[in-house]
């Protein structure tokens, strides 16, 4: 018995060693064409996306023999740390995934390669509004997918209660009151100490006409608009499932898919999840825009980007691959790996979806196209600091490096928790949040 155990362990040891080997050397190409190798680091770890990226990498390598694209996936929460570590350590960084604020931050610090030629090549007009990342008049990252938040509404439940789709905050509140009965809840919001809650509150603050920071990058949490947003959150929370205090993105999705909540906010992923896990309600809901406050039509949309590190040793190859990856049918296939969840940022690619030969896509085309259209209609404060001006907003392009602290220290999500879980006074919570954020920024200078 002991022998079996030892044998087993030894075999495991050997197998593991085989797996743990590093990467192989790359053959040089003979022609004067593209050659060499680059790293392609992505954080899109969902199986469908991984599959599609692997295919695209293989295609590119076939088109350009002598080229090797080393496709790496990073950990879920780890992407930022790894990239920061590499960038500052001067490790040659080729094509990496970044989100908008980080990209802006790195661009300002001068560690990203400008991509003006790439953008011009694709055509500046092809980009949907708000997608390009321009710092000091240069493009520093290539967007590949939108990330926009919409409202999912169970029209069957609305109809049964004799309600219309809510278009304003007041209508939403009235609707969820009526819709919460039996074991159905009117709405689901996250209230865990996490990024989801932070984002949800940020959107409400912007919708109320306020900002988390002003144009001078100073926190402005102690304002009437923030108090209104917190109050709204608190009022809505009463009609949420009891567990929201530990909810994050996943739980919100699960709650809507379970059929037990009537309304939810999220990106497009729910379309596919409902079709897979609860086909009964597949035709019973609609995708619409967020309800608005006082006539300010503000929706949230952001983008995810690829950037190239300034010290990339093979920029020609990196840009060529990046262009291949983010245009035409490759971009469409990436987008369709999570239909509706990853709206394309190029108008030419969005149009391709109409004729995409996939039964799921075709049967849900209306919802998917709504998501596309909604993606070019949004505002993200993290890259437009202080852009909300009460009853209108401006995409001023002021990138806010301090927004990262809001997330790291969970400032906004804690404010939500205080108001929702402990029923603290929103005015006081807003004041405390303002102090906390100011202290954090001061301490970290």
């Amino acid at each position, binding site marked *: 018995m002991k022998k079996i*155990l030892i044998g087993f362990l030894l075999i495991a*040891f050997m197998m*593991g060693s085989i*797996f743990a080997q590093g990467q192989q050397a790359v053959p040089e190409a003979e022609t004067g064409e593209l050659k060499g190798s680059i790293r392609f680091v992505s954080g899109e770890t969902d199986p469908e996306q991984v599959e599609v990226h692997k295919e695209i990498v293989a295609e590119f390598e076939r088109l350009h023999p002598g080229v090797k694209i080393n496709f790496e996936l*990073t*950990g879920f929460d780890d992407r930022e740390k790894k990239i920061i570590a590499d960038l500052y350590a001067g490790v040659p960084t080729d094509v990496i995934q970044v989100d908008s604020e980080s990209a802006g931050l790195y661009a300002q610090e001068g560690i990203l390669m400008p991509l003006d030629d790439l953008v011009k090549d694709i055509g500046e007009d092809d980009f949907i509004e708000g997608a390009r990342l321009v710092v000091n008049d240069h493009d520093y990252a290539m967007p590949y997918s939108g990330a926009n938040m919409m409202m999912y509404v169970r029209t069957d439940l609305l109809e049964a209660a004799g309600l219309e789709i809510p278009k304003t905050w007041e209508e939403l509140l009235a609707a969820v009151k009526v819709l919460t009965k039996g074991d159905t809840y009117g709405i689901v919001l996250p209230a865990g100490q996490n990024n989801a809650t932070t984002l949800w509150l940020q959107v409400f603050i912007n919708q109320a006409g306020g900002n988390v920071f002003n144009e001078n990058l100073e926190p402005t949490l102690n304002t009437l608009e923030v108090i209104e947003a917190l109050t709204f959150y608190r009022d809505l929370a009463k009609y949420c499932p009891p567990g929201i205090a530990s909810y*994050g993105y*996943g739980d919100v999705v699960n709650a809507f*898919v379970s059929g037990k909540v009537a309304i939810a906010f999220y990106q497009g992923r729910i379309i596919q999840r409902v079709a897979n896990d*609860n086909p009964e309600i597949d035709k019973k809901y609609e995708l619409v825009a967020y309800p608005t406050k006082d006539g300010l039509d503000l929706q949230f949309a952001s983008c995810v980007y690829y950037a190239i590190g300034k010290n990339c040793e093979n920029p020609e190859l990196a840009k060529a691959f990046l262009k291949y990856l983010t245009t035409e049918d490759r971009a469409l296939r990436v987008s369709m790996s999570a239909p509706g969840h990853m709206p394309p940022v190029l108008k030419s690619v969005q149009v391709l979806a109409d004729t995409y030969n996939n039964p799921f896509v075709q049967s849900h085309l209306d919802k998917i196209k709504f998501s596309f259209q909604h993606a070019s209609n949004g505002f993200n404060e993290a890259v437009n600091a202080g852009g909300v001006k009460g009853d209108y907003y401006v995409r001023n392009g002021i990138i806010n490096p301090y927004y990262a602290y809001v997330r790291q220290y969970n400032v906004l999500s804690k404010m939500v928790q205080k108001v929702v879980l402990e029923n603290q006074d929103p005015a006081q919570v807003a004041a405390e949040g303002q102090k906390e954020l100011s202290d954090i920024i001061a301490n970290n200078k």
Partner: protein
Amino acid sequence: MILYNKKFQATFLYIGIAILLFIALFPLLWATICSFKPNSELFSDPFRLLPKKFSIQNYVNLFRGSDFIRYFLNSVFIASFSTIFALVLACLAGYSLTRFKFPGSKLLTKLMLDAYMIPPILLVLPIYLIIVKIGLRDSIFIYALIVMGNTLPFCLWLVNSYYSGISVDYEEAAMVDGATRFMAFYKVVIPQLIPAVVAVGIQAFVLAWNDLLFAQILISSDKNRTLALAISGMFAQDIVYPWGVILAATVVATLPVLIMFVFGVDKLIGGWSEGGIKG
């Protein structure tokens, strides 16, 4: 009167045991059962005892959708490497510390046992910085070494206790009879050491299999991901994963530990009586 007491005691005993067994085993059983329900059933009919429709879809999705087998093998390699290495080092050192008196051996023993008190959470930050500086981040070998370092004090501590429990008289008798020290070790000590090695080995393996803290910090690429890291990522706050797949993953992750347990459970119990007390 006494008869009543005895019978009452017996039934009470059996009921108590049944309850305990239920509490101990239910979570894993429930996870297993639910993992064989299609994910939609987890939403539509979550509380059924048995699946309405038995399905392995979750497992299919699990293996198709990520490199789960790779994570599994990574963990197997790391845990095995760490356990064997730690055991060898600990057995060597334990023998020396309990049999030989060389200058500093007492101090060394005390220090190394005190190292047991040092929590991994303290070491993770300096180790992280050192590793990043050297640029050895995301190396599966380095990670395995560090995990091994974590289990070392514990292994040494236990192994030492066992060594103290093995009487030297037999060895001495053997050596007086003409055996070399090595032969004495081989013929006399090792047979007595084996149950200890198994017990310590199992606990060391479990410790390594479980590690999340160092994996989270030191491993970044997908190809080096460990099982613990993969599963924690599935239900971390910012992720969207269907419960069915998560539960399937937990079942798969628990299997090796179950196997070890079947092999060595009696050694585990025996071990503590001799080992643990010597403190």
